[in-house]
């Protein structure tokens, strides 16, 4: 029964978001935007480091696109509820809010995976990615695992949406910071030690490393895989707690209706 309601919520969320959107707009969001981002930094790496640099950036950016969908959409789902004036109504329901907002984001999470797939396809066509030695099975495991582990980071972003009236700039900052810190375009070893420490706390860092291993045909079952799962679980547990506290705080302060 609960699982049926869970599925119904997913379908309803999907219809509410995409019922009005045209196909061209949807395709631009899922295909064009990630393509230009991945192309920009891949060609930059190509200019500096040659073909290997281009491939390095292409793989990193492909997986980063998932993060954009997971983190940004979970945060902006709350922001858009606020903008439409329905946030209070949603927060009043007896449903578990965390499950509710994860449900709203499930479709976006799958979109992120689809976008990652398109990014790898563009990488093959335009960015000199050579998949001849890639272990696809392990690569898919990495992509799915990273996506699930980033849900905790997405919940953290959701908390931002609860607390701040204009959360979008902060969500952009979180996305861009993850982009900078997680080794998307260059190894994190280039950073100072304190920035490396922050990078090592994020699941995406390990996900990107593992995807590069899978691309090279090497085994992903290393300590990095354990760290990916561990950081994802820790982020999830901490974010649940912070989300609950934020929910209570926002009710007490009456900031749910700030526009």
């Amino acid at each position: 029964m609960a699982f049926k309601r869970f599925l119904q919520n997913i379908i309803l969320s999907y219809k509410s978001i995409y019922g009005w959107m045209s196909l061209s707009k949807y395709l631009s969001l899922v295909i064009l935007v990630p393509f230009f981002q991945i192309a920009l930094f891949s060609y930059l790496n190509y200019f500096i480091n040659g073909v290997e640099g281009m491939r390095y950036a292409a793989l990193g950016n492909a997986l980063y696109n998932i993060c954009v969908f997971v983190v940004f959409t979970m945060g902006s789902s709350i922001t858009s509820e606020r903008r439409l004036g329905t946030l209070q109504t949603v927060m009043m329901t007896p449903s578990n809010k965390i499950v509710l907002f994860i449900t709203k984001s499930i479709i976006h999470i799958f979109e992120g995976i689809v976008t990652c797939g398109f990014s790898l396809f563009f990488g093959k066509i335009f960015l000199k990615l050579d998949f001849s030695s890639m272990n696809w099975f392990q690569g898919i495991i990495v992509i799915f695992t990273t996506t699930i582990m980033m849900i905790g980071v997405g919940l953290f972003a959701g908390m931002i949406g609860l607390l701040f009236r204009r959360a979008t700039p902060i969500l952009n900052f979180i996305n861009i910071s993850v982009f900078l810190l997680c080794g998307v375009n260059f190894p994190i070893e280039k950073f100072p030690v304190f920035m490396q420490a922050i990078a090592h706390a994020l699941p995406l860092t390990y996900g990107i490393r593992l995807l590069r291993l899978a691309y090279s045909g090497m085994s992903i079952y290393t300590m990095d895989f354990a760290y990916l799962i561990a950081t994802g679980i820790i982020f999830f547990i901490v974010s649940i707690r912070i989300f609950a506290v934020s929910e209570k705080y926002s009710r007490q302060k009456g900031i749910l209706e700030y526009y």
Partner: protein
Amino acid sequence: MKKIIQEITGSIVLSIKDNLSHSALLLNLSLSPFIYTVVSFYLYKDLHDANSVFYMLLGAGAMGVWESTLLGGAWSLREEKEQGILEYYLCTPSSLLNIIFGKCIVSVIIGLIVLVEIFILVFTQIDISAISIDYFKFAAAIVLLLFSFSTIGYLLSFLFLLLRSFTQLSNILTDSIKFFCGVLFPITVLPYGFKVVSVLLPPTWGVEIVRTSLNNSNSYLSFNSAFIRVLVSCSIYIVIAVLLFKKIEHKVRELGELSKI
């Protein structure tokens, strides 16, 4: 003439007040270029020649200018559309051309501030003594860089009036312009098909003319050649914008969809 100056000045003042009221937007405009600067810095760090450092500096600055042009001008139109006041612009006796021109000037000023901010940030991190710049050419080139981005922003502002929601378009344009215009790398590394698009965009020449201001530049153009290309491309875009304006204004009135979000 006096009326035109009054309209543009009024639009500038209002746009400045509007931007200052959105501190989060200004924060976002400053943070994004900062992050790209850091990314470029760490990528270019291992290359020690002056050209590479200059590319990094210029690239980050140009990205900041473009984001402020696109997000600053277009964002204000979006906000006004959501607040339901965009229609009133068409009802006022002031020309929409001049109102949007005023907004573009303000977004250029914000871009200039972001550019200076990035230059200061980078100059504290790198040794600039190895970079030999012709400062007169550099100053002229920066003005032309800002002008090139603002002309494309000016044209896009009119197109945004036609669209019900331009968030998707602005998302595409944010990275696509940076990609096609060779902001972070010369367009010579792009495949031929992409280069065709690049040469049609004024910011491509705006970025290249700044590169030519570097002494011992390895740009494929001379300063004078880049100067002519910037002026010609910007002039074409402005003419297109003015010609399109009448048609767009008529279309917008006919459709009556300015209040739809």
